[in-house]
C-alpha cells in the first residue's frame, strides 16, 4: 500500500449526463468553438437542446446537457483529426452508438 499523501484531496467533477445543464456560452467555452458551429450541429440533429422551439429566436435560453457536450467534443475531434464534415460526423456517431449496442448484445 502506498502511504496516503495528506494534501491530495478528493476532487469531484460533474457527471455529463442528461441532467447536467449548460448555457450556450458555457457550452461554447467548454468545446472551444463558436456559436455558428453549435447551431450547425443542432441543425444536423447531432445535438438535442431543451427549449428546441426557441432555436430561431434568442439563444440565451438554450440548455445543453452533458450528453450534448460529450457528442460535440467527439464531432470536433472527428472533424479535426479525420477531416470529416458535420453530416459525416453525425453518421459516424450514429454508427458508433449502434456498434456499441451490438457489441453489448454480443457479449451477453
Amino acid at each position, binding site marked *: 500500500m502506498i502511504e496516503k499523501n495528506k494534501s491530495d484531496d478528493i476532487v469531484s467533477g460533474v457527471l455529463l449526463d442528461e441532467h447536467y445543464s449548460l448555457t450556450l456560452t458555457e457550452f461554447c467555452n467548454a468545446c*472551444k468553438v463558436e456559436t455558428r458551429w453549435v447551431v450547425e450541429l443542432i441543425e444536423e440533429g447531432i445535438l438535442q437542446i431543451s427549449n428546441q422551439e426557441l432555436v430561431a429566436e434568442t439563444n440565451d435560453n438554450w440548455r445543453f446537457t452533458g450528453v450534448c457536450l460529450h457528442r460535440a467534443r467527439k464531432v470536433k475531434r472527428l472533424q479535426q483529426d479525420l*477531416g470529416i464534415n458535420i453530416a459525416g460526423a453525425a453518421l459516424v456517431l450514429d454508427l458508433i452508438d449502434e456498434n456499441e449496442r451490438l457489441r453489448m448484445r454480443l457479449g451477453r
Partner: protein
Amino acid sequence: MEYKDYYKIMALDKNATQAEIKKTYRKLARKYHPDVSKEPDAEQKFKEVGEAYEVLKDPEKRAAYDQLGANWQAGQDFKPPPGWDAGYEYSGAGQQGFSDVDAAVFSDFFESLFGQQAGGQSSGFSSSQRTSHSAHSLKGQDHHAKVLIDLEDAFNGATREISLQTPKLTQQGTVTTQTRTLKVKIPKGVKQGQQIRLAGQGEPGHMDGNNGDLYLELEFKPHTYFSVEAHDLYLKLPVTPWEAALGSKIKIPTPTGDIELKIPQDSKAGNKLRLKGRGIPAKMPGDLYVILQIELPPSDSQPAKDFYKKMAEQMPFNPRAELNLRTDRGV
C-alpha cells in the same frame, strides 16, 4: 531516448511519395482514431502515427529526418549528432503557439529533433475551425483519460486514483512531462462510456488563460456474470429442465445481494425475466434482466440413460414442429 522509425510506424517505404504518405496517414488515422477504433492501444497508436506524419508530411522535416541515416533501428538508444540539422530551417518554428493538438504529446525523440515549437499541429487537416478559435487559445488544453471501474462502483459510488502526464515547459523552453495523481470521486449511478468533467483540472493556461478541463471516461471492467447496457443489467441464469418446466423459486445474485427469483411454470430457454429497478440506480433506475438457460443433466450413467428413454416414451414432444419437415420419425 529511443530512435523512432517513422516509416515503419506508418508501414511506408522510405521512397514513398508525399501523396502516398498522406493517403496512408488518412487510412491509419481512421483506423486508430480513439473515438472510433476498438483496437487495443488505439490512442497510443494514433499519437505515434500523428507524430510520424507531422515529420513525413513536411518535406523539410522529412529531409532532415532522412539524413540522420538509415543505420538507426527503432527503439535504439538515440542521441542527435551535434549540428545534425545545420542547413535546415523550419518554416513553422517559433511562430506557432500551442494549438489544440499539442506538441507535448510527441515523443522525446521528436522534441530533440524539432523542438517543441515545431509540433504545433499534429493533424494533417488544418481546418479553418482550428485557426478560427484563436481567441480562446490562451485557455490550457483539455485532458482526456479513461478510468476503469467495477460494476459495484456504479451502485455505491467510489473514489479512484488516476495518474496524469502533464507536460511542463522548462525555463529552457523544452517540454518535460510531470506525473500527477488525482483522487476522483465516481458518483453513484454512472453508465458505461459516460464522462465526468473536471473543470480546471486540464493543462495550465498560457499567460493569464484559464486551465483546461479534464474529461474522464468511465469504462466498466467486465463482470464475471453481469453484463451492462446503459443502466440495465443482464444475467444469464442456468436452470434445470424441471425448474423451468414446473416453475420454482431459486436464489440469484444481484449487485446488492442475493434474492429469491420466481421462475414461472413452463419457462422456455432464452426467456427474459425483468426485475424492475434492480439495475444501476439513477433517477430512472435500470432493470435487471434474467435470461434463462436450460441446462441438461448429462446422460453419463445407465440410470440417467434409462430416464431419458422413459421421457422420450412418455412425453411425446416435437421441438421441430415449425421446421415443416416432411417426415419426422422422431427418436
